[in-house]
Each structure stands twice: as C-alpha cells, then as structure tokens.
C-alpha cells in the first residue's frame, strides 16, 4: 500500500472517531467513548508508521507524493483539489502529533473520568487531531488554511470546554478571534501567491517560485510576512501571543496536547514547509527569527514571575516555540523540527504532571499555595522533575541536544546570526531558572493541606470547587471535575502516559547526538536538500563546545533556582521589592493585553456603538423619515389650500388660467 493511501487512513481514523463519539453521545457508555477516542488515534499513529515505512521504501529524491480525492473548488483558473502531500516533513509531524496525542488521550481517559462532558471532550479531541493532521498533510495552501482554521476551532471548543465559566468562554473567544487574524494572513498570502504563481498546490508553487520571484522582491517578502502573521498567531509569538496564557482555562489535557505539544508548533511547521519561499525572502526570514528571539526572552521573563502553575508553563511554551521559530527561520530546519519533537515530549509531560497536582488542589493553580507534593505524589513528582530537567536542557536530556543544535547552527551561520546564539543561551539560563523555580516551589517543603490529606488518607475530597479566577462556584453539571479527583498515581492510564513521556523526555534526544547519529536530519534531508543552507554544518567541535556551554548554563540556572527558592527562600521577596517596576512589568505580561485592547478592541467597539447610536438613527433612518416628513409636509400644504371655500377654488382656477395663458402668450 502506498504512502499516500496510509496517509489518507491517518486522516480517516480520527475523523471517524470524532463523528462516532459525537453521534453516539447518548448511546455509548462513557468508557466506550474514551476507548474509541484513544484507539482511533492509536490506529492513526500505526498508519503513520506504516506510511513512513513505505515512504522510506522509495528513492530519497522521489520521497514526496501528492494525492487527491476530488476537485474541491476548481473553476475560473483556480485549481483547488482535496489533496494531500506526503513527504518526510509531513510524516515527521504526523508521527509526533499522533504519537503524543495517543498518550494524551490515554491520560485524558483517566483524567476526565468524573467529567460530565466526557463524550464531548473526546469527540472534540479527536476532531482536533484530525484537523492537525489535515494541517500537516494538506497538499495545497487552501487545504492548509482549512486545517489551520479547524485546529483553531478545536482549540476554541476545548478552551471553552467548561462553557459555564465566563472566564473560559471569554478565553475561547479571544483565542479564536486572534487565530482568525492568523487565517486572514494566510488567505491573503494565498491570494498573492496565486496572483504571482497562478497555483495553490505545494508542488507547483515550490517548483515555480524560484523562476517567478527574484530574491527579496517585494511580492515574495509580502507573501512571507503574511504567512508569518498566520504562524505567529498560531504559535503565540509576539505580539499575537496573548491568547495562549488565557487558553489555560481549558482542561489540563487540552493544554498539554494543543497548547504545548502540537497545535502551537504549527507555525514552525509552516515555515519549514514553505522554506523555499522564505529562502527567497531573507528579510522576512530575519523578521521571523528576531521575533522568535524576542518572544523567547520576553516569555521567559514572564514565566519567571507567574504564580499560576499552568500559565507559567504556558509562557515557557511560548519561549520554547521562540527557539523553534528562530531555528527554522535561520535555516536550521531539522534542528527546529528536532526541538519541536523533544519539546512535545517534555512539555506534554510537564502539563500532565501539573494537571494531576492541580487536580489534587481542586483546580487551584496558585503555586504559592502548593508545597510538599514531593512526598504526597511521588510518581507525579518524578515525572515532573524529568520534564523540568528536559526543559532546562539538563545534559543528556532531550532538550539538551535539540536546543543546542539550533544555537550551534546559528553560530555556524556566523555574521549577525551569532547574536541568536548568545541571546539564545541567555534564554536558556532563564529557562533553567523558571523551570526549577516551579519544581522547588511545588515539590519540596512542608506539605500543604491538600498534600497532607493525600499523605494521610491516600485521596482528597473537596467541597464544591471554585473558579480560581472569579471565585464563583463551578456548576459541576456542565462537566467540571467533580469533588472526587483522580490522582495520577491511582490511575494506570495516566501513569502509563506520563511514564512513557518521562522516558522519552529523558532519552528522546539521543536520536540526534553530534557525531553519533543524525536520525532526524537524515530522515528530513530529502525535503531540505535543495535548501541554500544545506551546506552549513556546524563542526562537531563547535557543537560539543556549544553542548558544554549549554550544560553549564542549565546547571547554573538550576543552581540559581535552588539558591533562591530553597536555600534562601526569602530572597525573591527582597528582589521583587528591589526591582519593583521590572517585576510589575513582568507580572502584567508586559501589558500586551492592555495594548491590544487599546489599539484594536476599544476602537472597534466604539465604531460599532457610534454606528448604532448615531449613524443608524440620524443618517440612515433620517434618510427614510426625512423624505417621508417632506412628503407629508407637502400634503399638509395642499390640504391647507383645500380650504373648502368655493371662491378660493375659483381663485386658484383663474390663477391657473392666467398662468397658462401667460405661458401661451410668451410662447407665441
């Protein structure tokens, strides 16, 4: 069976799963939904593997296949088929997505058990996976946009999964609208591409692009910038990132799947996928790279001060994606994708661990209230630490190799790109610090009430949960985890998922060790062989030096974290007091929300209100009533003349007579 056939199956299973669960929302027992959901993704993963194998079967040069089912909308010179494009890159994404998703489904199977909306959840989740796969497998820009929007919708649906929470619905709306802005960017890019190249499908576009465009001509730059709008919106890069932290309103598995492992990395994939165009528009590429850099630093600072566990991790996600964007835009494609993969492992893991802690805290996500879970939840803590280590790029962990490869490449490209290496390491320091800040604030220390209860009784029971944001009581009937929580330890599916990921987080990096093996690079090579950066290869020496520095920095970071949060726990307060303005800036997320609110939201609403209150009433309606009034007024005059005096009638008659006669006299 050909790779494309397998690829179609990859798409098919999640879709079927989603539909089946949705239609059977009354018939199916809860567990069944979970099982179907998990299985369908598992099958998708299997098919993905099969596709990969059959792809590896054929010549490196011919490792790309397009296949289409039917004409989707092909008239008037536009040619849009329902087609997919299978090559190592897309399959790499397929594997990462389906693989991680399977584990997260498994995790959710346990985690969401006490949730009323169980069917809905799995239906949405499957739909998300389908959309994500559509995104990565799409064979032309239009279908890419479709997948792009579908994941956006799925993310919306899952963010506002607990839809009775005002905070959740608001967050969902925010995420959706910002993502639509991204879509628009893509759509305009597509138009421009069509205008210049006359086609939408990858094959034609990438083939013709070099002869159609001259490097850095404005059109290609415009195209790439528009693509970037889409990428940034999806991957939460500055300044379109504000939706991501709010998205943490959704159930934790969602955060771990969509907002850590898969969807948010779509931007990275997009740039890698369209690298042909970006290499024609270096300016745009640099813009992307610098944005990535900025994001990774800014996000890092925010992650440092957040007291909300999930939000903190979310910011770290932003910053990690910053690395990837940076990587793929400076040409370190395989490195970027590599980091994408490792990040998927450890970030998903971190969220899962955080999830089980938060569950134990009855959805209180405030780390100030957490402590002593090390004893209370041993398994969770271990996995959490694994994740943290990988994130902090602790030597030999997955993050260690992937992050470093990017920086090494930047260094190898030389010139101004060295900046990326330098600041990249600064970011790395930040990362290590905030990662272990979390670890040290949550795990060690005197157990807090919940932790204690857990230690004593082996389970926790709470009064009706409250929305931490608004403090209003949650109504559990819409599907909010009830008073009875599922703690990771006590639930094998969750353990399994976390265990596997923990291992991957630790050893996942070994697939790509300088000088030793280059599994990913080799696998992706056919995609990028035409790239102009293909010749750039950091020397093994440089790489090992880089690794050395990286390891040192991460250890340093961990050390700092220990010093601040364990050894001298009162220091942070003092520091805050010292650097008050900086701290407030970070805590308020650099005021991005306020900025956008001021620049976009308010004006829009103001216009709307003006239109409604003033324009509609006075101009539009005035147009109608005005005319009506004039006519009616004329009527009044005519009827006033109709006085009922026969003599005045006669008068008018004679007047008319005189007038008429006068006209005729003049005409004579």
């Amino acid at each position, binding site marked *: 069976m050909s790779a494309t056939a397998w690829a179609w199956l990859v798409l098919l299973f999640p879709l079927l799963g989603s539909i089946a669960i949705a239609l059977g929302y009354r018939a199916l027992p809860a567990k069944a939904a979970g099982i179907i959901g998990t299985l369908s993704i598992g099958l998708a993963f299997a098919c993905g593997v099969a596709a990969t194998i059959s792809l590896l079967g054929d010549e490196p040069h011919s490792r790309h296949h397009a296949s289409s089912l039917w004409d989707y909308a092909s008239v008037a010179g536009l040619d849009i088929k329902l087609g997919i494009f299978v090559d190592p890159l897309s399959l790499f994404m397929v594997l990462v997505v389906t693989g991680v998703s399977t584990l997260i489904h498994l995790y959710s199977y346990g985690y969401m058990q006490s949730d009323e909306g169980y069917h809905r959840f799995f239906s949405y989740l499957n739909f998300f996976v389908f959309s994500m796969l559509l995104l990565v497998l799409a064979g032309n820009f239009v279908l890419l946009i479709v997948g792009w929007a579908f994941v956006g919708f799925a993310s919306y649906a899952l963010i506002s999964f607990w839809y009775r929470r005002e905070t959740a619905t608001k967050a969902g709306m925010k995420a959706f609208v910002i993502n639509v802005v991204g879509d628009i960017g893509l759509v305009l890019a597509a138009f421009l591409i069509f205008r210049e190249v006359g086609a939408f499908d990858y094959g034609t576009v990438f083939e013709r692009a070099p002869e159609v465009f001259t490097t850095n001509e404005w059109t290609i730059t415009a195209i790439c910038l528009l693509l970037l709008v889409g990428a940034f919106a999806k991957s939460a890069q500055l300044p379109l990132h504000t939706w991501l932290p709010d998205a943490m309103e959704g159930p934790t598995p969602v955060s771990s799947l969509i907002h850590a492992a898969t969807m948010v990395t779509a931007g990275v994939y997009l740039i890698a996928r369209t690298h042909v165009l970006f290499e024609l528009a270096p300016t745009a590429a640099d813009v992307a790279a610098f944005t990535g850099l900025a994001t990774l630093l800014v996000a890092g600072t925010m992650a440092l001060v957040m007291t909300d566990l999930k939000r903190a991790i979310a910011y770290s996600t932003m910053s990690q994606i910053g690395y990837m964007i940076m990587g793929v835009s400076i040409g370190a494609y395989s490195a970027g994708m590599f980091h994408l993969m490792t990040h998927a492992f450890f970030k998903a893991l971190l969220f899962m661990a955080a999830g089980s802690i938060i569950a134990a805290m009855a959805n209180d996500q405030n780390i100030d209230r957490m402590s002593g879970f090390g004893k209370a939840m041993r398994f969770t803590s271990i996995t959490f630490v694994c994740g943290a280590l990988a994130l902090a790029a602790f030597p030999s962990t997955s993050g260690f190799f992937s992050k470093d490869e990017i920086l090494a490449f930047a260094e190898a490209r030389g010139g101004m790109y060295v900046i990326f290496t330098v600041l990249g390491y600064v970011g790395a320091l930040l990362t290590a610090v905030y990662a272990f800040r979390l670890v040290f604030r949550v795990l060690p220390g005197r157990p807090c009430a919940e932790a204690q209860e857990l230690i004593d009784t082996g389970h926790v029971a709470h009064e009706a949960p409250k929305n931490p944001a608004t403090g209003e009581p949650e109504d559990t009937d819409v599907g909010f985890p009830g008073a009875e929580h599922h703690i990771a330890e006590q639930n094998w599916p969750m353990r399994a998922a976390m265990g596997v990921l923990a291992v991957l987080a630790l050893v996942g990096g070994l697939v790509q060790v300088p000088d030793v093996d280059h599994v990913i690079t080799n696998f992706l090579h056919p995609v990028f062989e035409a790239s102009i950066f293909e010749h750039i290869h950091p020397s093994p020496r440089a790489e090992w030096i880089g690794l050395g520095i990286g390891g040192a920095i991460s250890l340093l970071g961990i050390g700092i974290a220990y010093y601040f949060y364990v050894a001298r726990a009162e220091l942070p307060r003092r520091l805050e007091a010292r650097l008050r303005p900086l701290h407030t800036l970070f805590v308020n997320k650099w005021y991005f929300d306020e900025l956008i609110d001021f620049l976009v939201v308010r004006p829009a609403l103001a216009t709307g209100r003006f239109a409604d209150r003033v324009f509609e009433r006075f101009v539009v309606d005035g147009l109608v009533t005005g005319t009506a009034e004039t006519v009616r007024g004329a009527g009044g005059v005519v009827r006033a003349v109709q006085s009922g*005096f026969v003599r005045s009638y006669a008068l008018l008659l*004679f*007047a008319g*007579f005189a007038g008429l006669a006068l006209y005729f*006299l003049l005409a*004579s």
Partner: protein
Amino acid sequence: MEEVLFFGSAIGALGGAVGVIALRNPFYSVLALIVHLFSLAALFLLLTSAFVAAAQVVVYAGAVMVLYVFVVAYVGGGGESAWEPIPGQRFLAPLLGIALFVELSVAVLSSSLLALGTDGPDVEAGFGDPAAIGTLMLEKFLLPFEASSLLLLLAAVGAIVLAHRRREANA
C-alpha cells in the same frame, strides 16, 4: 353714428356688469343684469345679428330674469356681510381680473389676424336674420340644436328634482 351707438351700449353693458357685482342687494344685481343684457342685445344688432339680439331679449330678459326675480323674492335676497373670511381674496380677486383682461386683450390686439382690425366684410342683407340662422340650425347644426332641446328637458327634470316639495312619505 355707429361709434356713438357702440359706446353707448358698451357703457350700458359694462355698467350693468359692474352693477351686478357691486350692488349689495341681489335684487338690484338682477336689475343691473337686465340693463346689461339689453345693451348687449343692442351690440348684437350693431353686429347685424338680429336673431341673436331678439333671442337675447326674449329668452334672457324675458324668461330667465323673471325666474330670477321670483327666486330672489322667494328666498329673500338679504345683503351679505362685508367681512371677507378668505385671506388675500379681496386683494387678489381684482388683480386677477385685471390680469385676465390684459392677457385677453393682448391676445387680441397683438394677433396677426388682419380681419380683426376691420369692421368685418360687408355682408348681404339676409345675414344673421332668422331665416339664415334657422337654415343653419336645421342643416349644419341640426344635432346640437336637437341636443340643446334635450338639455332643456334635463334641466327641467333637474329643477323638479331639486325644488319639488318632497312628500314626507319617503323621507
């Protein structure tokens, strides 16, 4: 001589007319109209239309005016108040009158029709005498003539409808 006659009767006609509209008491107005009619008849004679003149005297001054007098006597022609309820009427009415007069005369005087300036062609003796008129009426204008008789009938019926004293039966 003709001038004298013309102006005499013209003044009579005009005077009569003015009398009609100026005199407060309807009864006097009627009398004024009679004067007017007679002088008009004279003018007709000047225009060598004997039959019309005769008809004028007989029909109008005879029949119609008598009818008038009766009615006035019946309803009692009280004078009317000088108060003018319609704004501008008293001011506009004469104005319009003058305007009409001017326009009509201009139309006549500025006409390029030469015959207007003449006394008209000299006509043979029979012109406008009953015989001639009668012939026309029975030949060319037979239908209008008959029709007008029908009109008289209808008018009579109308008068009955309007003026007959209704028996209270069907009221």
